[in-house]
């Protein structure tokens, strides 16, 4: 067998053949990869929950080198790295999932300080002795559609209860597809829009353009590298328990506000319903089917600074937010949703770097409030079984 140019009668031909075969193999593997599209399947191959403990929140990281965490767009890989992945479909626990934005994910909070972390510390149990276990499936970026996208995947894990925290900022139609995780998963999100009949444009220009070539190994090299990096960062996650970069200083929420009464170009006196995604909570709750959903209007920073008579905070003019609360309350009553309005639960001093990010102490307050509702719902669910 010829294995090197020296053992070949013509080294030039030997090298030409090697290069030719390498090229053909490379082309064939790339074409097969594009045809099979195995990236989501590959995402499910994970060292988490086997060699490393599962992550307590979904992977997200702006400073991977310091957070030992990164943002990626492969939802199966994100879930495979999460502790929910091994929770299986057992009935040994009452499984509660939390979905929502960065305030649920726990921006600037350690895993133990997050809402789910603190709720788990309460060690709630059902009457039959089963523990109530809370799973953090919040993900930074504010969009109801993003929440539903994550909920769709989470339903594979058969939760017993869903807690969906939201705020008005998640409702504008133009915000719905602004989340990178939605833009980077165009086919899955388009399918979801059509299946749930969401009021969104499947041809939105923000969707990532895909082609046959972008589905090859070369085109997917970044996504593949992200999968590898997620596994490698698992070592540091296991070793340190750190999954977020905590800056030493940060800007508190804006206290003195502009004298601006607009909300996404909407002016008083009334919100324009066509520009808000009010059908999406209903679609999400219908998607959950028999699994009960507790909808929570999350706490917001209420400023008492300049122009606070016009606005509550950087996000919201008073008129728009007040009307939003009223609509949500009415919708919940009409549809029979379990609804908890916690908008003014937290004092202004307990917000960290945004009008929705809570301090650990404030998170405790919110956790206690939600736990009371959860206990009631769990008891009634058990009775109805």
């Amino acid at each position: 067998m010829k294995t090197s140019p020296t053992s070949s009668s013509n080294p030039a031909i030997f090298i030409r053949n090697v290069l030719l075969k390498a090229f053909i193999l490379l082309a064939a593997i790339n074409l097969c990869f594009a045809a099979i599209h195995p990236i989501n399947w590959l995402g499910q191959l994970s060292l988490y929950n086997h060699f490393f403990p599962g992550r307590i929140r979904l992977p997200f990281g702006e400073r991977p080198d310091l957070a030992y965490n990164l943002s990626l767009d492969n939802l199966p890989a994100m879930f495979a790295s999460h502790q929910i992945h091994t929770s299986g479909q057992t009935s040994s626990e009452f499984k509660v999932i939390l979905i929502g934005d960065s305030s649920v994910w726990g921006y600037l909070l350690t895993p133990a300080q997050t809402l789910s972390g603190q709720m788990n510390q309460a060690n709630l149990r059902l009457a039959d002795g089963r523990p109530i276990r809370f799973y953090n499936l919040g993900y930074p970026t504010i969009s109801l559609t993003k929440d539903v996208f994550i909920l769709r995947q989470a339903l594979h894990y058969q939760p017993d209860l869903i807690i969906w925290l939201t705020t008005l900022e998640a409702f504008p139609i133009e915000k719905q597809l602004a989340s990178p995780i939605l833009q980077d998963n165009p086919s899955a999100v388009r399918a979801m829009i059509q299946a749930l009949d969401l009021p969104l444009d499947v041809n939105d220009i923000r969707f990532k353009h895909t082609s046959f070539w972008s589905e090859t190994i070369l085109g997917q090299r970044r996504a593949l590298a992200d999968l590898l990096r997620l596994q490698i960062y698992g070592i540091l996650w296991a070793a340190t328990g750190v999954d977020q970069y905590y800056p030493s200083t940060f800007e508190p929420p804006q206290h003195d506000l502009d004298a601006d009464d607009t909300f996404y170009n909407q002016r008083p006196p009334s919100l324009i319903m066509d520009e808000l995604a009010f059908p999406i909570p209903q679609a999400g709750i219908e998607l959950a089917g028999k699994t009960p959903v507790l909808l929570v209007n999350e706490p917001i920073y209420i400023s008492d600074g300049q122009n606070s008579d016009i606005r509550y905070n950087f996000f919201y003019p008073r008129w728009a937010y007040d009307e939003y609360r009223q609509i949500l309350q009415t919708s919940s009553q009409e549809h029979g949703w379990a609804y908890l309005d916690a908008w003014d639960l937290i004092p202004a001093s307990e917000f960290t770097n945004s009008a929705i990010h809570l301090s650990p102490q404030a998170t405790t307050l919110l956790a206690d409030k939600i736990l009371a509702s959860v206990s009631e719902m769990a008891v009634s669910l058990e009775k109805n079984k």
Partner: protein
Amino acid sequence: MDLTFIAIFSLTALVVGQFSKGRNWLLLMSSILAVYAVQPATPIRGLDYWLPTLTLGLTILVWAVNRQVGEDYQKQDFYTLAVVAGAVLLIGLNRYIEPICCLTPSRPPVWPQVAVGLAVLALLVVCFMRWGIGSKWGPVGFIVVLLTLFIVLKSPSLAQAASAVLRRLTGQQAALASALDIRWLGFSYVAFRLIHTLRDRMAGRLASVTLQEMIIYVIFFPAFSAGPIDRLPRFTQDLRKPFKLGWEGFWNGGQRIGLGIFKKFVLADSLALASLNDVNAGQVAHSGWLWVLVYIYALRLYFDFSGYTDIAVGLGQWMGFKLPENFDHPYLKPNLTQFWNSWHITLAQWFRAYFFNPLTRWLRSRPEPIPMWAVILVGQVGTMLLIGLWHGLNWNFVLWGLWHAAGLFIHNRWNELVQPRLQPLTAKPWAAAVLAGAGTLLTFHYVTLGWVWFALSSPSLSWNSLLLLAGVR
């Protein structure tokens, strides 16, 4: 050196390898361009132009003082001077050629500064070429200059002070000076090569080389930034041999480059994500996981450095150079002495030739006898301290050097006192195999624990990490 540079260097090597005639001129030009191109940007204005220029200037000056009485200049030396001066001037004036500006990472200085700088260098070169020949103190002076530069660059406080001076000279704020401002890429290796020629010249061992050969040797682009540290006589042998790249050389060199790229950019860069550093060392709570991070660091360091060596050796092969190897399965060696014969081999050989051997020779030739074990101890402590300090002037590198000196000394004593008594046992193949296996494991872990001093920046952090690794914290 990133993948773009490796691609450019590979193409250059392939072109150079095709020219049997004129190969040295091509090598000279490509190496000069590479020195400027790979120099990283610095916050001090124009410094990324002046540092490579100084590298070339120092090389020419050292070549001049290395010449012995009776060695005549050749025409080619003057052509080389003209080519170097022309190239340096053109790279400087590149500032004014807008579409192709600039080879250096930032714009070179304005032309009057370039002209004055080059005039000063030219004056120095003329003086040394005219009056430096056969000088007894010239080589000593240059060794002092190189060591001083080395100490300034490796010492954070001195580097910061030097940066402040340079900032004042360029009209920048001295208060913003930082020790990281002066990043002179490749200086360490340039200094090793220059000191090697100066010491050999002082010992009368240096054969005559042309200026062209000297410059190519010092700034040979595959080995410029990360070694290996070749010897001038060996290098010039390859340089003077006629060469044309054949298919076999292409295949062998290509395999070596491919292996190096895989080691560096796939293995080392992936391992780097989870290897020990100052931040994670303070965050790890369990001994087992800290061991994992330390193992990863050890492997990452090996793949990173040996990957670069593979690339350099492969590129060298494409141009007809058999560069010395730097690594020979170091983590599989059964004792620390063999480890140091197979880890960064050319650096260890350099220190052995120019520090350890002269020092131990001097100690043994003292009129009052010094016990052999003391000679070895002093030699090993001194050598390992210098190797440590070469990485940076701080306590952690001192402790890392002492760690290895202690290990080498213990191994030396073991060889002297214990090994002979084990002779009957080691005659049995199975016992020899067990001892060799145990030795390899022990050596690997001793070296790996030593990396804790090397990887971290403070003795207290390293000590705490070692305690955690030992399970006592």
